[in-house]
């Protein structure tokens, strides 16, 4: 059976549309409202949800995602609760889900057991920020548990020969980080995105999505013209933060995300 991620990209390919991918941190601001936020994203028409597994020391994340993780942890988030939330979301939605995580929490949970439980809960892919393919190949306990698609990251400074190696071990799609730096909103898009995406595509037939620093409908539309998908994270996380105490949090998130989705689909 084809994975939800692969089905989604195949459908978009026939429609000649780019995917809109939303990142939110699981458990932010708390378990219940984090689930409401996921449903709001679904209503707004996102094609895939990246669910952040909160970690105490997120070195690849900027301040917005750090604060989200700490709000989540303060409200009692855990790996177990993240998976339980995905399971509840799956009762009502078939939108593909990718777990966006650092290694230590899932290492602690049990690497293989995590993959099994996450797949059983309804997750489709995993993006491990601090687990490069090189390490996965040689650490016995990290041998690819293949229930989830392994989403790989490529950075602007990844050399060509390394791109070739990374894409081989990837599945589902390739996540191109459009700039050197941590996650976070930026006013300007990075330069050279189009050329980099073309470069990556010369090594793989996997879809290539672009993230890091994309925050407005204008950015989204521009990137949708160059890549197979657009990832918006910190801008949505900031919206969650701003309205985390409001009763209408989910609507606020919907109102923020809908124009981003529409802009992506306008291309």
């Amino acid at each position, binding site marked *: 059976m084809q994975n939800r991620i692969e089905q989604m990209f195949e459908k978009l390919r026939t429609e000649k549309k780019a995917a809109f991918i939303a990142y939110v941190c699981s458990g932010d601001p708390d378990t219940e409202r984090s689930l409401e936020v996921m449903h709001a994203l679904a209503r707004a028409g996102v094609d895939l949800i990246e669910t952040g597994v909160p970690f105490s020391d997120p070195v*690849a994340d900027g301040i917005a995602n750090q604060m989200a993780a700490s709000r989540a942890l303060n409200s009692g988030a855990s*790996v177990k609760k993240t998976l339980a939330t995905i399971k509840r979301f799956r009762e009502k939605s078939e939108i593909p889900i990718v777990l966006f995580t650092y290694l230590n929490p899932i290492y602690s949970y049990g690497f293989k057991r995590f993959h099994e439980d996450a797949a059983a809960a309804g997750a489709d892919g995993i993006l491990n920020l601090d687990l490069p393919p090189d390490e996965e190949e040689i650490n016995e306990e990290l041998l690819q548990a293949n229930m989830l698609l392994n989403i790989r990251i490529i950075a602007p400074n990844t050399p060509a020969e390394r791109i070739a190696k990374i894409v081989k071990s990837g599945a589902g799609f390739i996540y191109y980080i459009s700039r050197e730096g941590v996650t976070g909103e930026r006013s300007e898009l990075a330069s050279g995105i189009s050329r980099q995406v073309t470069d990556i595509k010369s090594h793989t037939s996997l879809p290539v999505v672009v993230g890091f620093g994309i925050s407005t409908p204008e950015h989204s539309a521009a990137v949708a013209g160059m890549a197979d998908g657009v990832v918006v994270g910190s801008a949505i996380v900031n919206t969650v933060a701003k309205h985390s105490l409001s009763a209408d949090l989910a609507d606020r998130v919907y109102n923020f995300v809908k124009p981003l989705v529409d802009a992506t689909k306008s291309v």
Partner: protein
Amino acid sequence: MSNITPHPQPDALGHFGTYGGMFVPETLMAALTELAAEYERAKQDPLFKEELDFMLREYVGRPTPLTFAERWSEELGGARIYLKREDLLHTGAHKINNAMGQILLAKRLGKDRIIAETGAGQHGVATATVCARFGFKCVIYMGEVDMERQALNVARMRFLGAEVCAVTAGQRTLKEAVNEAMRDWVTNVGTTHYILGSALGSHPYPMMVRDFQRVIGEEARRQILEREQRLPDYLVACVGGGSNAIGLFHPFLDDKSVKMLGVEAGGRGIRRGEHAARFEGGKLGVLQGTKTWLLADDDGQIELTHSVSAGLDYAAVGPEHAFLKDIGRTEYSYATDAEALEAFQEVSLIEGIIPALETAHGLAGVRKLAPELGKDGLIICNFSGRGDKDVAQAAKAIFGEDVFG
């Protein structure tokens, strides 16, 4: 005798057995690979070694003495104790051995901006110093809590032209400073070299920092053979990340008769959040680029740590220490805040040398060990740093006085 060498070089990705490695975001892979390659080239280059040796001799102040602690040995009534006097180095601690090595490497890499993390401030001061000496821009990340308890070193870094950035995340100590330094590096990787201060983090740092600190053990080995015509029974050093310890231990690894003791920070006792003794209360995990023993809860979240010593107040231990412990080559114990402060006072009073609070943990280990070894025993303790930076904190703890008002 076993023909398995107890200290293999790590593999190409920096693994010491199952420990170490390169668990980093993709954005850093290119920089780390470049750094590892340049370091290998530098190692083969006689001119690099020549310049480093020259700077260590003429600027840093090597070799350091191996001082016989005559009165303290007598007081403890056991082994003869020698102190390897890294406190006498320029800037007051062993940290500058590594900072000097890495700044020469940064020159080769063509970078013009240096960043570093610091806990006690000794590594920050050492880095700011070599940056001033070689004309590099310098940014030091330091937890807000550490900036308070090590205010003297903050001022020193500023005199030396470094920008000291307060880190306000989490528990505002060393771990968070490393996180911020890594974020800076990810963002500015094209222009910036990160001078990591301990035998920690992703490959090539644990190996490279160890190599730059090995000079401690190489000198100590030569000196003890001259003085005592024999090898010591024990080497003792405090272990935060573990750079001063690995620097002393490593050149003795082939000397099977020499035992090695690393002393971690026991803080207020081995209870969750009250200490930094990773081998005592920790488990296997991955943090800040390396697989090693660390303090984490059941969910894999990194736990709070505590130590009176900012330099030991850190949740993970250097991966090579974890490896050496596994193969039975090294052993580890811990000293509580109170034990470290007792050793601090005793050595100040009896030997006239005021240790850093980090160093005092190693000394506390010696206090227990020396009587057990008896009169025939011989110990070298790494006197990793001097206590000037800790004056305010120690005075408060010992006299209950706020010396700086």
